[in-house]
């Protein structure tokens, strides 16, 4: 039972990047304003590479307790 709950939380964490890219990123499709020097879409897609890694890291912690 406990394992099932962990798997569920991990899968929720793993689907966050899909939401960020497929559902949210289209709202950033405009040439201005430049954020950190970049167009909004590029900025969003770039920071989410790091945030994806972070989400999966959390999923790993949830699944294996960081070991």
């Amino acid at each position, binding site marked *: 039972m406990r394992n099932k709950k962990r798997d569920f939380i*991990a*899968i929720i964490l*793993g*689907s*966050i*990047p*899909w939401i960020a*890219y*497929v559902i949210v*990123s*289209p709202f950033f*499709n*405009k*040439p*201005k304003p*430049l954020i*950190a*020097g*970049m*167009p909004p*879409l*590029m900025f969003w*897609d*770039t920071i*989410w*590479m*790091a945030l*994806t*890694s972070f*989400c*999966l*890291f959390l*999923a*790993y912690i949830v*699944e*294996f307790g960081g070991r």
Partner: protein
Amino acid sequence: MNETALSLSIIFTWIGLTLVVGILAGIKRKFSLEGYLVSGRALGALLLYTLMAAEIYSAYAFLGVAGWAYSYGMPIMYALAYGSLAYAFGYFYAKYIWKAGKKFGYVTQADYFMHRFNSKALAVFTALIGIVFIIPYVQLQLQGLGYILHVGSLNTLSINLGMAIALIVVLIYVYTSGLRGIAWTNFLQGIFMFIIAWGVVFAIPFLKFGGIGPLFRRLLETKPQMLYLHPPLGMSWYLSTMILSGLGFFIWPHLWPSIFGAKDIKPLKKTYVVLPLYSFFMLPVILAGLTVAAAGLKLSVPDEAILKAVELVYPKWVLGVVGAAGFAAAASTASAIILAAAGLTASNIYRIAKPSASDKELVLVSRLFVVFYALLALSLAIVARGRLVALLLLGYSGITQMFPGAVLGMFWKRINKWNTTAGLIAGLVTIIYLKFFGPGNYLGIHFGLWGLIVNFIVVLIGAAFVKGDRNFEEFKKGLEEL
């Protein structure tokens, strides 16, 4: 020494060095097909990570991404997106590939199809799909290698001659080392590529325009249409290619042997936690492509953009250093995927046709087909040269059609050989029709995703009419025992 000779000698010195490492790593290997293809399932996290990273980051990421950014601008964002999507998916999915491989002794992807669906015909069919759609992937590596030698030699070598030389280097890689050797050469190459991308390529917009902000302000003034998505490569193209590639990534047959090669699940998962960070490497590459566009250069071969960007701001010999990194990226991927295609041929087509074949015979067949596929890809690269991004997406279009069988088949008892096969055929017919006879990317959605949609509909309808597949019960029981 003149500039051409210096640039070329840097490239070939690096190639020579990586070859020596590959040969040393390959010497101790025993000559079984399993050893040749999956390294006896003993790869740890570090080797696994570099193997996958260097295998993933190929001529496509190094040259193709820059070329697409140079030509169109923002549509290339799909490439940043799909990597993350793929790893977030693979983090959960790869475990099942690995478990099934360990439990049932799979060496290739088609082994899974044969065992799970108890169908030799489906194994041959999926092996053929894998091989056919790996060919454009090999082709794009060869084209990229040709471009590198073309620009790296300051136009002394023609692109075709460059591709022929590259082919020989790739064959030497494959023949001397097998997967483990490739893993070790990739270890060097992965590090080298990373240093080049951040140390050399990243500086290009700074040297040319004084920073990333000034680069984009320049584009806002001169080419604002490059800074947002609009048809024909509009929002539907961006989303459909990222979904197609994000779902299809883990279906590539050449990734399965490296997943089987893992020692355990944990190193595998750790790899996918870290890999999205490695995608940052595409950022300098994209910026370099955009720099060439902002500088107003007109390129006859757009996929040479990253090399032209280097030429724009650095002395010529730097082309040799960047070329070496790109060459390493492309050659390592090319060797790994040709090896996978040849492995599929030997163990899932030849062995089914001739069950009595000895292990030694299979290795021989696999090695002969390495040459055959390499030459086939070279011929295509000469007569039907394409844009690198388009070639990769063509590959994905076919490979992703195996998604229902490869993914749903692992979890759902109603997936059997009949609905899987029907879906595959429907999907392939759809993409062939759209690509060659129809409107291509209908409604702006990539034809590969249309294929997958039709495929899914057929599989789901088929699943509604069947009871559980008996093979699935055995398959599931096997996995649970592990």
